[in-house]
């Protein structure tokens, strides 16, 4: 129980840091740490494949993409924001926590217990025997993402040629 609370608190703290930090690199790294916590929580909740994807894709791949993009854009990584954003976010955050708590409390009582364990079997079994189609769609998403990068960053290369 104590470990879970520490993990949940870490998740929330690093998620908030990711929004509040002004240095983009630090914000991206906080997001990575937050998703690392989330990945461990998934493991503890007996959802190994969600955990693996969370850590490999979100904490790993996406962070690399973020850091690369930030490195490519400008030397000055600071974002200029108005003060209102910094004041408004904590208020909304606290409001959200209160509402979320209330909604979840009433909702959770009405959701019946799971009829069967959602992730019976080993990681490999779940991935290859039960949810194969997701892999096809994930290939599609990666393909679409790669093609989108190819299509949208084409002008830069042309400029270089000139």
């Amino acid at each position: 129980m104590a470990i879970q609370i520490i993990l949940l608190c870490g998740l929330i703290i690093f998620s908030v840091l990711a929004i509040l930090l002004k240095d983009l690199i630090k914000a991206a790294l906080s997001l990575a740490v937050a998703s690392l916590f989330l990945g461990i929580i998934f493991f503890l909740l007996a959802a190994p494949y969600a955990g693996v994807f969370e850590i490999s894709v979100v904490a790993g791949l996406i962070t690399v993409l973020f850091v690369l993009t930030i490195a490519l854009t400008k030397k000055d990584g600071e974002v200029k924001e108005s003060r209102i954003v910094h004041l408004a976010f904590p208020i909304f955050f606290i409001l959200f926590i209160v509402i979320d708590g209330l909604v979840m409390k009433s909702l959770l009582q009405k959701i019946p217990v799971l009829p069967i364990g959602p992730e019976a079997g080993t990681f490999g079994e779940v991935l290859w025997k039960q949810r194969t189609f997701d892999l096809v769609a994930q290939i599609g998403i990666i393909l679409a993402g790669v093609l989108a990068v190819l299509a949208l960053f084409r002008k830069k290369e042309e400029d270089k040629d000139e």
Partner: protein
Amino acid sequence: MVFSFIVIPLLVAAFLPLIGKISKKLLPDVLTNAALAFLLFNSILLVKPIFTNGFIIQNLSWLGEKVNLQIALDGFSLFMLFTISLVSLCVSLFSIDYLEHYGHKANFYALFLVMIAAMNGLVLVPDLFSVYLFMEVAAVASYALVAFGLGSDELEASYKYLMLSVVASAFVLLSITVIFGLTGNLSFQAVAQGLQDLNARIVLGVCVAFFIMGFGLKAALIPFHAWLPDAHPSAPAPISAMLSGLLIKVSGIYALFRILYSVIGLSPALSRLLMALGIISVLVAALLALGQKDIKRMLAYSSISQVGYIVLGLALGTPLGIAGGLFHLFNHATAKGLLFLNSGSIQHITGTRNLDELGGLGKKVPITSGTNLVGALSIAGVPPLAGFWSKLIIIIALVQAKAFGYALVAILASILTLWYYLLIQRKAFFGQVREKWQQVREAPFWMSAANIILALICLLVGIFFTPVYKTWISPAAEALARGIHQVLMWGL
């Protein structure tokens, strides 16, 4: 083989960037069009098995072992596959000439094919999470395609589209998560079965509300429409045609009504709510369209209005209403595809889309003018064109269900539709030729050919209404009208 609808476009898309290095234009053009023509042919071949069996379930095996790749095809999905293949083939024919000034054809076609594969996948998969995933694949491809021109307004529109679309996906995913929590399963059949035995009306109501918000955003129903009038006009014309003609229908209408009819079950209260959303979209978007000066923006508002008609018919829930809604979906896909392609032709010919600058083009570009008139009259519902029949069926269904108020508004909005389409026709094509358009010439061959094919479809479907209705519409409408029994029959 039903898997070819997903596999072939994905495979061709994967190789296109490489092929583009060898041949910049010819091979990408030929390969894309050949792949799409094959899919269209394939969808026609599947009519007979669907007619005799009602549905097809296929499992893929890899090296002799089943890998649990399962797809389910019934009348409704086949109808969607046919519509997707037909419109996308015409769009890719149009792109042969239109993309000359954008360049980078191979990249464009690759994204285009990924979008088509994703739409086909969305239509074929029998489980909720795969629906979500394929919806995302189509969305990622479409963000890039909207921004393909790389101009500032294109990028802005794409960003706005991305932001609102992510909200839509979040709602859909949240709802799927809760349903998974309720039933412990994701396949349509198990969820439909599980929800029947369960008494969780409030939680299920929340799920349905999230689905309506999520898919409503994707379908651009009012009040979730804010992104569409920016995103659709900014995209290159072929992509506007794909987005307005197909994507909002597949990832909005198809997904919503497949889940509502075949998985959750349409309750009378839900039907009334959706009908209200539909009629508001029909009327408000028609009024908004009247004030537009940019042709594509007007067409985009018209899409919202026509999606309203489709939702009105489908949400009514009577067999006739469903048939009318589906028929209008097909007619709107072809006619709006045609009109967006035509707007691309106009832009290609004159360099502008502003109605105030155009005038008298009809004498100079008879093919563009003529096909535009056919598409406009079809959507406005003028006999004997296809759109007339679908609107007539929807209105008759509304009258039969004693929803007289809805029927009246639907008729009035139809007159508004005719009004703003005649506005386009009058301002752009009729009257004296303006000085600066004296030298304009008709659109290139493939652009005109694609427009003519779509115009002929609008005309011929109207004339040969009965066989079309029997072959495509009524099996699809029956599959939906069977409701939850449809997916229980699949026996996955």
